[in-house]
C-alpha cells in the first residue's frame, strides 16, 4: 500500500492552461505539504496544512491554490501555467505539525511548453 500517493506522475501542458495535482496519504497523518523541486534539484516548501488548515504559505504566487478537503488529501491547483512552473512537485505528510519527519510521495513532474 502506497503511503503518500500523487497523481498524475507526469503532466505535460501548454502555457496558460490550468492543471491540478492530487495527493492522498493513508498514514493517518495530520499534516500535509507541497514541495517544489526545480531543475537543479533544489527543494523548497510551498504550503503546509494541518488538519485541513493552512499553516505555511511560502510566498508562492496566488496562481497556486492548495485545497484540503480532508486531512488525508491535499490537492494543488495551478492557474495560468508559466514556463517557470516546470518542476517536480512533491507531496509529503507528517504525523503532526512540527514533527519534522516527512513521508514523501514519488513526485509529479510538470512540464509547461
Amino acid at each position, binding site marked *: 500500500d502506497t503511503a*503518500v500517493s500523487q497523481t498524475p506522475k507526469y503532466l505535460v501542458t501548454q502555457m496558460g492552461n490550468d492543471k491540478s495535482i492530487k495527493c492522498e496519504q493513508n498514514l493517518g497523518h495530520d*499534516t500535509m*505539504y507541497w514541495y517544489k523541486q526545480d531543475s*537543479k*534539484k*533544489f*527543494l*523548497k*516548501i510551498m504550503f*503546509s496544512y*494541518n488538519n485541513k488548515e493552512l*499553516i*505555511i504559505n*511560502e510566498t508562492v504566487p496566488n496562481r497556486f491554490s492548495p485545497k484540503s478537503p480532508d486531512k488525508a488529501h491535499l490537492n494543488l491547483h495551478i492557474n495560468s501555467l508559466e514556463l517557470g512552473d516546470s518542476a517536480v512537485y*512533491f507531496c*509529503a505528510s*507528517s504525523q503532526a*505539525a*512540527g514533527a*519534522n*519527519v*516527512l*513521508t*514523501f*510521495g*514519488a*513526485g509529479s513532474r510538470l512540464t509547461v511548453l
Partner: protein
Amino acid sequence: AQSVTQPDIHITVSEGASLELRCNYSYGATPYLFWYVQSPGQGLQLLLKYFSGDTLVQGIKGFEAEFERSQSSFNLRKPSVHWSDAAEYFCAVALSYNTDKLIFGTGTRLQVFP
C-alpha cells in the same frame, strides 16, 4: 539567512569503498538535522535525523552521520557502499522542533561503480 550547503554536487565511488557526504549549515543555534535519500523516480526517504543527545546517529541502510557543532556540519557516512546506494542525497535543517519548514541543501548525486 539560514542555509544548508552540500559542497559536493556529484560523487563517484567504487562498490565496497567508504563514503562521506558533506553538509554544512548556517544557523546560530543548534538546528534539527536530517538526511534524506531520493532514488531515481522516487520520493525522498528519511535516512536519519539528529535532534539532541549523542552526536553520532545511526540510520537505515547502514548509514550514520555525525553532528559537529564546531564545524556546523552534519556529514553522512557509510563504511562500505553498495551499488543500490546510487541516488541523490539531501541534507535538511529545521530551525526548531515546532516548525513545519525544512530547509534543504541542493543535494549530492552519488554514483557507484562496480
